[in-house]
């Protein structure tokens, strides 16, 4: 294939439209505000989108498998709060983090079982779980904020390592949250594009009946997708707790599921299943992150910001759908 062929293939790639939209936004922002194109701001954006990105990677698995998970915001809150409470109870770091991840894994498992063997549409099952998990978080914390510091009981050494996970910098430059996002995205990309499990997720989401007839364990594949989502929501929740380092069951992650789904859809995943890429999801997350960052840098009214974010989501998805039509031709 010649250079022209590569260029044509690249222009028709699913992610190209969204990437161009992202470039256009960055270009406009770099012209209209001095602060945007600085290394400090770009690293800030990278850190600010990392937790959303980690969850959006999980959501990509779920959406490709033909399902949806509305409980991610609650899972994010409960897992982070669990780890925070365990550290305050003077647990060691690894067991405390494992506890938080186990919460995410369990929620993912329940979501998966309800949506497959339980025959409850995932939209409904996870909507119910959103409420159940949020309620659990409120019950275990009694609605009180959980703050992880020495005054609350955390051990000095444990606290220092926990804070490094959320607040630290790799090589003194790259925020740890961004490092986690990059690692998660790389692993997810490898899994989706190079493993049997990745192939099966696309097959199950594209046509569940055909996948079943061909002998694929459809329910098991979908449950695994939900577990991946639960684990990644838990990881993001734990990183958030390590960064702040405080959380409150009534507010933490409230409404986050909509941001996660929006970022994933903007990135090209389809609500009807069988479509989506990790690269597209990364671009979708960056579109939302850069937009939020840019609107604040421009000093746009907070009310107008909401309007702009909604419009950009609609336009980005519309561009993707139009270019999808061209790709199909």
């Amino acid at each position, binding site marked *: 294939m010649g250079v022209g062929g590569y260029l044509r293939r690249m222009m028709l790639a699913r992610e190209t439209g969204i990437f161009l939209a992202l470039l256009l936004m960055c270009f406009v922002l770099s012209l209209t505000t001095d602060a945007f194109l*600085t290394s*400090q*701001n770009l690293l800030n954006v990278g850190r*600010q989108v990392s937790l959303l990105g980690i969850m959006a990677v999980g959501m990509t698995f779920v959406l490709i498998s033909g399902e949806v998970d509305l409980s991610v915001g609650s899972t994010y809150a409960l897992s982070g709060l669990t780890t925070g409470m365990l550290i305050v109870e003077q647990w060691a770091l690894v067991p405390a983090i494992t506890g938080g991840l186990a919460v995410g894994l369990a929620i993912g498992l329940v979501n998966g079982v309800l949506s497959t063997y339980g025959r409850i549409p995932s939209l409904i099952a996870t909507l119910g779980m959103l409420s159940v998990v949020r309620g659990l978080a409120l019950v275990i914390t009694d*609605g009180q904020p959980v703050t992880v510091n020495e005054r609350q009981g955390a051990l000095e050494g444990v606290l220092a390592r926990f804070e490094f996970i959320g607040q630290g910098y790799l090589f003194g430059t790259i925020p740890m949250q961004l490092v986690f996002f990059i690692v998660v995205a790389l692993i997810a990309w490898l899994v989706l594009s190079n493993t049997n499990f990745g192939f099966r997720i696309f097959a199950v989401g594209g046509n569940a009946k055909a996948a079943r007839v061909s002998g694929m364990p459809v329910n098991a594949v979908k449950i695994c997708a939900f577990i991946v989502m639960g684990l990644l929501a838990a990881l993001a929740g734990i990183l958030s707790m390590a960064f702040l380092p*405080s959380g409150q069951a009534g507010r933490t992650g409230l409404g*986050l599921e909509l941001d996660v789904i929006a970022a994933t859809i903007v990135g090209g995943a389809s609500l009807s299943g069988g479509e989506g890429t990790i690269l597209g999801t990364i671009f979708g997350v960056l579109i939302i992150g850069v937009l939020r960052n840019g609107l604040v840098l421009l000093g746009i009214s*907070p009310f107008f910001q909401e309007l702009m974010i909604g419009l950009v989501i609609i336009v980005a998805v519309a561009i993707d759908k139009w270019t999808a039509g061209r790709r199909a031709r």
Partner: protein
Amino acid sequence: MRSTKLLATAAVTALLFQLPIGAAQAQDGVNVADFALADRIAEAVASGDQLNIYVSYHDVSNEFAPFIRRGVFRASEELAVNAVFMGPVGADADAQISEIETLMDTMDGLAISSVSTDALAPLINRVIEAGIPVVTYNTDNPESERLVFAGQDLVQSGREAGALMGSVLDENGVVIITTLDAAAQWSIDRETGAREALGAYPGIEIVQTVNTGTDPQEIYASIENAMLANPSVTGILSLECCSTPAAGEWVDRNGATDRVMVVGFDLLDQTVDLVSEGAIQATIDQAPERQGFEAVNLLVQFLNGETIADLDTGVGIYTIENIDEVIVE
């Protein structure tokens, strides 16, 4: 010393701007003799039956709810009534209305902090028409025919915060205002007061109101972006509990304690720590436990024939000078 000066400023501001709350009723007071009390309630009071007092809070999952609930429980024990703390999870006006409607026939008195002034005023009036006394607490509903209000004058507390900021900046500087919800009535009231007080300092410029959203990560990111967009900022004035510690954390992590002053609200654990470390110069407490207690107490006094009037539960100003009082508690 700056902190001593701060406390003195707070005292002077309170005297200068001392405004009546719910003016007419606050001065005159109301008595059950002038109220068309429902027969069943009058009989219950006459026969010495235990009274059912319902205390509806606008969001039982927020940080304040546990403190207000504690005050309600204390009132229940000390005043020998059945005081029930209730309300929606999340600021949901429909849910608050439904709950009150459901319990209307069993309540001998209602204390309410409204999710929305407009949405709840008709219901409050309906409850009063049914012969049930209604007082407001924490967040007033002046559009309704409520009897009296117990709580902090929000505009006044905003003025105090503004005056404190003026003082810590030595009357010169560039300020951003942060709030979880710029459109909420409590935020508008506090911002009005803060801008009014800061307007008295010609050397102070307010460059932006930052609507941070409610999720803790979102709050921190919003402040981070706003500070990058406005590098000349020397003061962050938070209008509520939750962007106060985030502002303090930003100042602390960026080594900006000498050049960026923070004034905020409430005594979350993280805020207390940051005040004691010097990253937050002053925080204003709302005495939520007392608000819960007084909400019940006013109704009990009213039903027992005492004249009641609006009650300002006051503000507590905490700086590095006196924050130890909270830590000891």
